[in-house]
């Protein structure tokens, strides 16, 4: 901290709150590991389709051929297709669907929760009881009912997965927002007669970035598992398109001859869930009020005190 106020302003703010929250998390080892794992899987899913190689849908060899011997790095699947090619092509759609439905879940849930907290009274009661009803329906059953009624359209999967996760987000957002709406800076703005939606948008939501980011990480990995599960049940990706969830389903009968047809997509899904959650956890820990304060304190302590002082004369001030 500067002791001469004329020279430098204390702690100039760089970037938005979101950027700062992530930067703090990436200073920890936990955050870096989480980011590395997430990026690894994302790279496989998005760069994979660009890598030249055999077609993921071409029948090339015997079913369940073991790796090597001209059968590709991971062997072949139940129809003799190249497992490596299917792994490289089978992640992009899954990740995009999961991302879209998570954004929807966080958006809906945050708005519902924050409006409930800010308005209070009957609005709060109505929104939260609706949330309770939705929470009573198991997520997979909810999506299955929707998809089996209309058919496995992409928008429906996004809507279904998003809607099934939104109630939990709403609960978290409401709890966090209740604390923020009690703050004086929110009250001050309300006392100027500023409309509620402006107060919520400009003053309440930005303070909820950290809890919502953590929710985002959790819900993203839940959505991936839910969507992979839908594909496993045959209600997601349509055959013969490759998909990590579908691959696990198709190839489990041939586990003994070529386990890689199941293991490769399963490991990628597990790594993604692990990475996203580790990152979310790091963001949460690094942005706890105590951690933020400590972070600021440690920056202050970067320089060591050069001062030494001789012993002092005793003060006989009591006589």
């Amino acid at each position: 901290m500067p002791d001469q106020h004329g020279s430098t302003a204390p702690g100039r703010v760089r970037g938005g709150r979101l950027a700062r929250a992530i930067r703090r998390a990436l200073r920890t080892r936990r955050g870096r590991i989480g980011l590395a794992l997430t990026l690894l899987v994302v790279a496989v899913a998005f760069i994979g389709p660009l890598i030249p190689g055999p077609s993921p849908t071409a029948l090339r060899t015997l079913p369940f051929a073991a790796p090597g011997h001209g059968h590709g790095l991971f062997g072949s699947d139940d129809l003799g297709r190249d497992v490596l090619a299917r792994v490289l092509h089978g992640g992009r759609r899954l990740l995009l669907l999961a991302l879209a439905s998570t954004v929807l879940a966080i958006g809906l849930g945050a708005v519902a929760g924050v409006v409930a907290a800010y308005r209070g009274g009957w609005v709060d009661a109505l929104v939260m009881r609706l949330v309770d009803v939705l929470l009573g329906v198991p997520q997979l059953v909810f999506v299955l009912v929707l998809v089996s009624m209309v058919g496995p359209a992409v928008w429906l999967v996004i809507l279904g997965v998003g809607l099934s996760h939104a109630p939990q987000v709403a609960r978290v957002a409401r709890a966090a927002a209740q604390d923020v709406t009690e703050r004086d800076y929110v009250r001050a703005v309300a006392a100027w007669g500023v409309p509620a939606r402006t107060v919520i948008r400009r003053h309440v939501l930005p303070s909820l970035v950290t809890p919502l980011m953590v929710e985002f990480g959790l819900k993203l990995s839940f959505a991936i598992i839910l969507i992979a599960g839908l594909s496993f049940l045959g209600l997601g990706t349509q055959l013969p398109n490759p998909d990590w969830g579908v691959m696990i389903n198709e190839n489990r009968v041939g586990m003994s001859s070529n386990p890689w047809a199941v293991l490769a997509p399963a490991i990628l899904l597990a790594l993604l869930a692990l990475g996203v959650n580790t990152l979310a956890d790091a963001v949460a820990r690094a942005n706890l009020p105590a951690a933020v304060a400590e972070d600021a304190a440690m920056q202050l302590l970067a320089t060591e005190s050069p001062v030494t002082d001789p012993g002092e004369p005793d003060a006989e001030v009591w006589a």
Partner: protein
Amino acid sequence: MPRSGPEVSTTVPDDRAPADPGGGADGVVVRNLSVCVAATGAAVVERVSFSIPAGATLGLVGESGCGKSTLAVALLGLARRGLRISSGSVRIDGLDMLALGERQRRGRRGSLVSYVPQDPEASLNPVHRVGSQLREALAVHSEGNIDTRLQELLAEVGLADSQRLLRSYPHQLSGGQQQRIVIAMAFACRPRLIVLDEPATGLDVSTQRRLLETVQRLAQDHGCSALYVSHDLSTVAQLARATAVMYAGRIVELSASEPLFEHPRHPYTEALLAGVPSPDEPRRLSGTEGEPPGPGAWRAGCAFAPRCTRVTAECRAAVPALERLERSVVRCLHPLPVAPTRRRNERLVGPLASESPSGSGLIVRELCAGYGPVPVLHAVSLDVAPGGCTALVGESGSGKTTLARCVAGLHSRWQGEMLLGGQPLKPSPRARSTEQLRSIQYIFQNPFGSLNPTMTVAENIEEPLRHFERLSATARRARALEALELAHLGVEFADSSPVRLSGGERQRAAVARALVVHPDVLICDEITSALDVSAQALLIERLRELQLERGLAMLFITHNIALVRSLAQRVVVIREGSVVESGPAEQVLGHPRHPYTQQLLRDVPRLAVAAPGGP
């Protein structure tokens, strides 16, 4: 308040003086006590030495962040998380607390040394009745009949030994009663040293005075040494026989209280004293910009040099040693001479500001308000003239904040009449005109909650402009910078996060946010209660200037009656929701007629050290 009984103002007997730090002398002897940051080794408290004879009280003063509380808990052998006691000794009756193992030390806490924290609620268990907590404190450390001791103890701290009290949970007691329970627990095992860390902060003046008298009597009766840590210099002057002034982890002046408060020798002590308002006459307050450097940010040389008026090149070269000067020890190369009379701030003469004839401004008539079925205000009436300051004075729970919130539109359940510039004010902000909303601005008590931490200071100040005026981004920014200058906060703070500002700086940013829309009425709700005297003095002086420059009307709400003297033209004293006395400041504070006002004025601590033998 008598600072001490007649017997204590006499000289301490020689055999009790802390002559030999290694011997078995009575009292407390602290030698070269240092506390550092465990991770980096940066000093937080550096080589502090002092002694407290048995039965005497040492005051410890300084701004927030100067290491007072760290030093206080170090006397118990404790350090906050991340800190470490690096060296030194704390001998209590000859026994070195710091040389003991942690287990032994724990056994001695309570019987050898005990601690009274600032917030009594935090140190009482909310799910146990106070009776069982007191019994527990007695049972852990002492033998004998617990019920007899309990009765003695309650009598000692001035609490009635009623079953109703003992069966209460902490939240059912008032702040004063809670603090008495904590003090009873602290004295339960007859400690040799009691460390009081701001024990009376947050209590009303009358409660505070009675509490401090109790502490003093107990310490004297039991020959217990006391360390009284406070940022409130007036209470220290009343209570402590000697006072140590701390700055940036070092003692800068240590002296008997009388010379210290009458003739401060260190420029920092003088600066602290210059910020203290007097309840007896209106005086200009003078504050010192800046704040103590944090651990690790200490420069070579005297830590106070950047803020000092007497600084020379030598001061920045090396840390001055503590040197003996007549009756004090002072860490300064250029100590102040002993002036023939006590230095005082300039007296404000004449009217503080010119009030315009009433008729405009803010008029409140017969205001009744409450929360649910509970009435809080009973027919309160007051006037705030343009260019004038009306102070609303009362203890906590008297309804003064509720009144402010009614005026600001933050509380809508009231009946009565409110006029702003002759126009009626509706309860709900939505029913008020934009012009009315603009012309009343509110400054909150807590500087740490009133600015949005996700925005920069300038963005916070621009926020009301976005709502009240249509301006381009450049024009808005220009207005925000202008308001920053008005509030005497440098423009270099514009792009900082409010989180990085000190309490005083944040409160000035809040003032800037209120001023940016050119209001007619400013409502200040206990705005200095979280600030150090120096920051308080700077803020009050700035508000007085603004009142003169801009004809601003102010409703100033406070429990600090001394502060009112330097700022307000009119004073309204409120008690339990009803006005007990109101009128011009000179009359209400100079010649109070209501017994309650008289008592408030009598109980408010004064900087002057009480004469030996009491007033």
